[in-house]
């Protein structure tokens, strides 16, 4: 589903690489954590998958596409295969929950009928059934993040990327979000989540890819957060 072949990313000439010789494969239906200290390259990894950035060297394959050969006008079709969730929820403050989720379908030109079917279904999935008409500021942080996940998932993309989705949430709320991501993963969606929340990583016991200074220093099935530090 996602394959990095010896990928190196250098943002500025002469600077230390943000990613160096990264060689990682995620299969369809995988659930993996991307951990590492601040600046270790987690966000850079996700940006390369989304083709927001392009690698300095190496090859990246996502959802059967070679990103190096993907014409830039084809990038939108790539992004429709990927849902993305961020630490700041990035909801539109003047749109209701329903409209926020529907927005993601409207802007890729989906029909009215399809939107009316899919959106309530997805809101039910993330546990927001009945709160369609709330505005974002009327929701708790956890609920806002659920809206963001619903928006990322409403198009049923095969890949879901999460960049520290629980960074702004308290521990109890975070656990709820992780349960939701786990449920989405069980529908066959590949989930890749960058985080430095050790409790969550330790609890979930999923695959852990650890970056340090842009290099993969650990790739462990059913890992915990701080193995090497401890």
């Amino acid at each position, binding site marked *: 589903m996602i394959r990095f072949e010896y990928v190196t990313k250098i943002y500025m000439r002469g600077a230390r690489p943000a990613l160096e010789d990264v060689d990682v494969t995620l299969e369809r239906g995988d659930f993996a954590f991307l951990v590492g200290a601040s600046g270790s390259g987690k966000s850079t990894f996700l940006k390369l998958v989304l083709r927001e950035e392009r690698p300095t060297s190496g090859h990246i394959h996502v959802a059967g596409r070679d990103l190096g050969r993907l014409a830039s006008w084809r990038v*939108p079709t790539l992004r*429709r295969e990927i849902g993305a969730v961020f630490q700041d929820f990035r909801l539109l403050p003047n749109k209701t929950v329903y409209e926020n989720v529907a927005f993601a379908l409207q802007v*890729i030109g989906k029909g009215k009928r399809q939107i009316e079917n899919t959106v309530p279904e997805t809101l039910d999935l993330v546990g927001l059934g009945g709160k369609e008409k709330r505005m974002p500021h009327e929701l708790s942080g956890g609920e806002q993040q659920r809206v963001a996940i619903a928006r990322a998932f409403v198009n049923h993309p095969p890949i879901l990327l999460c960049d520290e989705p629980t960074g702004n949430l308290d521990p109890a709320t975070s656990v709820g979000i992780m349960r939701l991501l786990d449920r989405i993963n069980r529908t066959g969606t590949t989930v890749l989540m960058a985080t430095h929340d050790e409790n969550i990583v330790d609890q979930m016991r999923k695959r852990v890819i650890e970056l340090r200074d842009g290099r993969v220093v650990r790739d462990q099935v059913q890992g915990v957060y701080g193995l090497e530090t401890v």
Partner: protein
Amino acid sequence: MRLTFIASEVWQGLRRNISMALAVVIVTFVSLGFLGSAALLQMQVANLKSNWLSKVEVSVFLCPEASNRANCASGPVTTAQQDAIQQVLTTGAVGDLVKQPIYYESKEEAYDYLVAHDKDGYFSQSLTADDMQPVLRVKLKDPEQFQVVADATQNLEGVDVVVDQRDIFKTLFLVLNRATLIAAVLAAVMLLAAVMLITTTIRLSALSRRRETTIMRMVGSSKTMIQLPFMLEGAIAATLGAVLSIVGLWLTVHYLVEDWLASQFKTVDYISASDVLSVAPLMVLIAVGLSAIASLVTLGKYTSA
């Protein structure tokens, strides 16, 4: 679905940056107003030129009964002299420049004209036909060639003086041409301002909706879908400005030129309100073109994938 969605995005964008959009409308209004004025002034100049220059004639005044001028020292013009002058004007290089036939105005005709036009009768009561000069009224195929005709006839026997009315129009044309130039320069400056304004409006709009565009990029919205609303905003504001300036020019020409000027100075052919309509499409086109350029320059940077 898509259309209503884009329309609502455009509407929101315009409302959010209303003061900016109004500034664009006003500035395109004024700049295209200047541009249109320059075009119309140039049309008016062309009108006047074709109008007046075709009427312009070279008048060869022949010697009258009694004259103390040096040219006419030998007394009034004789028939032989007159034939010689006619000969020069009808044959050879000069003949080719001149529209045939040449109109001969006798002193009696000149006197009748004077009597008819001198309402107060100051002169007609004290002058007789014999005080008047016979004149050859020469029309030219190309009015600019006055000097050739003048040179050829000036020193012939029996010619008093050669006069060309074209001189009196020169100043007028100069003034009109300068007005056109000033309008054109102002138009250029204002168009520059318009481009920068549209650019900034689009940029502002893009900045104030960064969150939307970021989400759109992330969920895989096409470039067109992302950029179209901004481009439309700029284009709508610019077109509105163009329409306003067309209306403004139309009103100006209709009331100021057609109604008022034309009633004041009747002898001239004026541009009409329909001339405004003939430049209108061009003005709208320029407005849309400007906003398209501004969009291209701006949007790449602010909403790129």
